[in-house]
């Protein structure tokens, strides 16, 4: 394993012993290492993207907007402004003379045409360098048109993807608390933070909460609406998934508005059920708890026999998990175990020390844990550990496929709901089909330790 790791990255890779693994993390990516991470802009864009009734204007050359045009599996129950790509498409003359004037005209034109509830202006790399007064333009246009126009400090070089999450949370924080509800807010009202409604996942969760008697006030940000977010401070509880991106906002809301928060995950039976029980426990209403128990019992009773089928056939297989957020890795380790699959390599782009501790506690001795990895490492680790299955995103897919390994997409592009009990069934089905397909009969699995 050591030959594949650059010296400066050695401390970001560890092998689990006694449920522990000491690992370095939360560092900038090493130049030339071919990190799977993106940039600050990516982090901001990914968090705010699902707000469907806002204009998302990317201030910079066209590339950043083009690469993020309608690429995600997030869906809307109403407007679809988020599926359009808006950019000031800066040219050489704008770089020389400044792009602020163009930005102002672009904003006016977009707001006039689409009547959005708000506009987000994403600053890309060069905006920070050429010194456009993005804040000033946003304030001016906002004052004139009467909707929030919010700058997002997402210059790509200004840190890591995680700093982009924080910039997005700052933008959301500007919205929150700016509108008062006209109707009384039901007593058991929560905000959902950090679900992005990929393939309608948020609607699955919403159904569960509704069955329990819990009301969703704001969806932040899956199927998100500006006005709901502005009123979000009236929720009694923030339920936070995707801890890496949204804990920052949850903490802000706790400090500013006194809204407490709970961290959850909706992937796999254990985490999904815990999410429902935690919310019931928070409201201290035995009826809620009873309804949650009933729901979990119904769903699990239906689901478990189906999972038996997959577990019988998949037991003994080994998996690599490498995704953006560590919370997802943690849930996936547990979800895979439900269907008989052990994780032999796992990691994330942006995990925190405590996330990696949790991973180590869940994994068998010898499991490799890695922070901010790259294709050379991932392919080497997967081969060394004899993995059959890789769970990742688009950039990891060809690594798996070229090595003759099954692959499941658990990223933002996917079109299959994997959250909740229904999602667990979909996940098991997808893993099963991916591992069992006869196409693997025709590829030669590379299992020697060497590198070609």
């Amino acid at each position, binding site marked *: 394993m050591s030959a*594949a790791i*650059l010296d400066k990255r050695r401390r970001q890779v560890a092998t689990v012993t006694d449920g522990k693994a000491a690992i370095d993390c939360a560092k*900038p*990516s090493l*130049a*030339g*290492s071919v*990190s799977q991470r*993106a*940039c600050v*802009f990516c982090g901001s864009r990914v968090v705010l993207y699902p707000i469907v009734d806002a204009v998302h*204007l990317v201030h*910079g*050359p*066209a*590339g*950043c*907007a*083009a*690469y*993020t045009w*309608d690429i995600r599996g997030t869906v809307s129950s109403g407007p679809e402004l988020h599926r*359009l*790509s*808006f*950019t*000031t*498409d*800066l040219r*050489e003359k*704008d*770089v020389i003379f400044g792009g602020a004037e*163009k*930005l102002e005209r*672009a904003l006016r*034109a*977009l707001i006039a045409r689409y009547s959005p509830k708000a506009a987000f202006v994403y600053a890309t*790399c*060069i905006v920070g*360098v*050429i010194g456009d007064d993005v804040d000033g333009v946003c304030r001016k246009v906002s004052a004139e048109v009467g909707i929030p126009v919010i700058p997002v400090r997402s210059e*790509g*070089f*200004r*840190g890591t993807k995680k700093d982009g999450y924080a910039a997005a949370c700052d933008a959301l924080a500007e919205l929150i608390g700016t509108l008062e509800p006209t109707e009384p807010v039901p007593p058991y009202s929560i905000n959902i933070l950090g679900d992005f409604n990929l393939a309608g996942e948020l609607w699955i969760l919403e159904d569960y909460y509704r069955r329990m008697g819990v009301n969703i006030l704001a969806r932040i940000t899956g199927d998100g609406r500006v006005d709901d977010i502005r009123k979000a401070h009236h929720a009694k509880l923030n339920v936070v998934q995707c801890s890496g991106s949204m804990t920052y906002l949850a903490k802000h809301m706790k400090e500013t508005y006194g809204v407490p928060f709970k961290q959850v995950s909706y992937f796999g039976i254990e985490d999904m059920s815990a999410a429902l029980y935690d919310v019931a426990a928070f409201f201290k209403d035995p009826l809620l708890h009873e309804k949650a128990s009933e729901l979990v019992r119904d769903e699990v009773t239906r689901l478990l026999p189906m999972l038996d089928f997959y577990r019988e056939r998949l037991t003994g297989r080994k998996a690599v998990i490498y995704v953006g957020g560590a919370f997802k890795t943690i849930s996936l380790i547990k979800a895979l175990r439900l269907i008989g699959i052990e994780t032999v390599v796992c990691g994330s782009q942006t995990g925190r020390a405590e996330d990696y501790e949790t991973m180590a506690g869940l994994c068998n001795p010898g499991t490799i844990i890695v922070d901010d990895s790259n*294709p*050379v490492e991932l*392919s080497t680790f997967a*081969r060394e550990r004899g993995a059959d299955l890789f769970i990742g995103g*688009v*950039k990891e*897919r*060809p690594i798996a*496929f*070229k090595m*003759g390994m099954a692959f499941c997409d658990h990223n933002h592009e996917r079109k299959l709901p994997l959250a909740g009990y229904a999602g667990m069934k979909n996940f098991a089905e997808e893993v099963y089909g991916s591992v069992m397909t006869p196409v693997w009969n025709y590829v*030669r699995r*590379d299992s*020697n330790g060497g590198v*070609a």
Partner: protein
Amino acid sequence: MSDAVTVNPCKVCSPLGACVAFRGVAGCIPLIHGSQGCATYIRRYTISHFREPMDIASSSISEDSTVFGGTAHFSTALDNIIRQYAPAAIGICTSCLSETIGDDIALFLNEYKASHKGVALPALIRASTPSYKGTHMDGFHAAVRAILECAVKEKTATVEKQIVLLPGFVSPADLRYFKEILADFGFQGILVPDYSETLDGPSWDEYHRLPEGGTPIERISSSANSVATLQLGRALQGGGGDWLEETFGTPCRRLGLPIGLRESDALFAALAELSGLPVPPRYAKERGRLIDSFVDGHKYLFGKRAVVYGEEDLVIGIAALLNEIGINPVLCATGGVGETFRDGVLAVTGDAQRLFPGELEVMHDTDHDTIFARAEALKPDIVIGNSKGYKMARKLEAPLVRVGFPIHDRIGGQRQLHVGYRGTQNLFDLICNALMGAKQDKSPIAFMYV
């Protein structure tokens, strides 16, 4: 829409094109001098089309380097790439950020080489690709030129039967077909780039850090000794072929991207002339079958209205084909910024302009929002372009024939053949069948014999 805003861009940025071109040099890994995101976005975008590994390194510019310059990060990046990949070449392209902060890559590279005296370094290719200038096509052509500028140092003597082909941004299948054609004329071809294997490789027996294939730098270094350069693309100006001609006197034949009968004829005529050999019988037969199919299919095509969009030279090539088969190219559009696009479209659509006077519209430097607005008014029967026009085609209730890049919603974009008689045949069949299928699907009577 206001000229201050682009809605749904019909282009991506120049480093993307450069990275694709760099993958066509043997053992070459691209390095973008920019934020980490540039490399990652471009990887995701290209992987989703080619469905192949696409490792692109980044110098991961951070806040301190935007103030103090990116030298430290840059040499760290080179060190780590060499350590991880042991590449034969590193294809370095810039970004909007590095160009704006004014990093001098040439100077960096000189310093780097000076500090590595006596160490065998990979070829360090350097292309300037600020994202605020041009599109991915400009980045592609800049990289092709940069590859030649890096590799070709001299002309010794002309090597008979050696020819340089600068194919432009075509598919791996197109590149394989070009190689076949050159070989059948007895040429030793130097393709710049040749990603026919690197971006469309077989299943691997063992993992490769860099995929096999590509034209070796040593081979490219003898380019000036070729009998000629074939530089494809009517819209292209100042390409690598121009540079070889200006610098070493290697004759440059500027041809259109060979899509359609006449543009393909021009390529085969040039090859026949340069080789002194007749067109090999298999291609004469391909040509014959193509014309035969034109006749077989013409009833389904005449006067049908097409909207075509994408990279400049691809659109010109498609327009050339439509012009030959009686389809009315009502709108030819590109996000490319050059003025040469219009001339190219007009040059290949003479018959269409005569048959459908005043109907042809040509738009450059445009976006999908503008294309859609025009298309709605023009009511096309068929839409031809990459996947990014899917929603437009769906709203127009017109079939979309997917060509070029990116094809993100179907499999096999890398195997799509566009060029020469065989590629034209493929496109002709796709277009004809799309129109026949649409008519059949829309008819209340379910004819199964048409």
